């Protein structure tokens, strides 16, 4: 049997979803490794997870600082070589701040942190994403959301991003344009998502709908696509 492929989880000071995403990788068949943000992921890493939490306390602006960490600086090259990246919640904010995904995430409207089980719907995107092969278009999934700065904004409006939005909330939760709940880069390999698929991979705790994401990535790696 092939050894389990490595999934690196970057841990920033203040990250608090690192265990959640690592467990989700593990359930999908990966071998998760934690990588201190001051270091870089092992060379044989196929998949990188940027976890949720309050990196650097989320002071001043969520995700502001993380992009300068060595682990993050290595990501553009990693993606260019075919690596897969997922950022959840604060991880999504970090990927956006780092320029790996377009647009910006700002204060919820109405303002304030909110936790809620939400329903998101899968959409057709221009690029096929290895993160979504198990998620048919139109599928509805239940994940918890838990954020205060998840309001997705793009200066050029919905039309500029519509092709890259793989999930929308079934109703507006935080002010995001077009109810955007997630975003893909132009390669489809970088996936940022505001609600938490990583908290929906254990049927005992609310929903198993998040497992599809991590299993899709595992398929891609198993088929040598990443």
């Amino acid at each position, binding site marked *: 049997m092939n050894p389990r492929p490595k999934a690196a989880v970057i841990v920033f000071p203040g990250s608090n979803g690192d265990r959640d995403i690592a467990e989700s990788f593990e359930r999908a068949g990966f071998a998760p490794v934690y990588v201190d943000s001051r270091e870089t992921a092992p060379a044989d890493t196929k998949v990188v997870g940027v976890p949720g939490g309050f990196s650097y306390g989320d002071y*001043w*602006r969520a995700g*502001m*600082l993380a992009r300068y960490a060595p682990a993050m600086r290595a990501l553009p090259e990693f993606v260019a070589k075919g690596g897969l990246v997922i950022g959840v919640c604060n991880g999504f904010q970090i990927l956006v*701040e780092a320029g790996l995904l377009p*647009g*910006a995430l*700002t*204060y*919820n*409207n*109405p*303002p304030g942190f909110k936790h809620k089980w939400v329903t998101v719907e899968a959409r057709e995107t221009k690029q096929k994403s290895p993160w979504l092969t198990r998620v048919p278009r139109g599928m509805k999934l239940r994940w918890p959301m838990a954020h205060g700065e998840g*309001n997705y*904004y*793009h*200066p050029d409006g919905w039309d500029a991003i519509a092709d890259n939005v793989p999930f929308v909330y079934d109703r507006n939760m935080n*002010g995001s344009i077009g109810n955007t709940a997630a975003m893909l880069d132009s390669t489809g390999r970088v996936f940022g998502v505001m609600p938490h698929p990583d908290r929906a991979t254990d049927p005992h705790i609310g929903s198993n709908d998040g497992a599809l994401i991590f299993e899709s990535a595992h398929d891609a790696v198993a088929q040598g696509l990443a």
Partner: protein
Amino acid sequence: MATYKIELIVKPKAGVRDPQGEAVDGAVKGLEVKGVKVHQVGRYLSMDVDARSTDEAKRIVDDLCKRLLVNPNLETYTARVEGA
């Protein structure tokens, strides 16, 4: 070298919705205070910058804003420099 005192204000860019400002405006209205309209809520930061001139101090601040403190998609900023 001299030390310059800088006051930085970062606020929502024109056209970007400002839910925080709206919420504060709503709260003011809730107090039944008339004739007050809150426009924007932003962030304030004070710092000391060592530089050879006001211009250099400004450059350092601009650079810091670009690299870290301001998200150009959402925000603009003004920096006031007080002399050494």
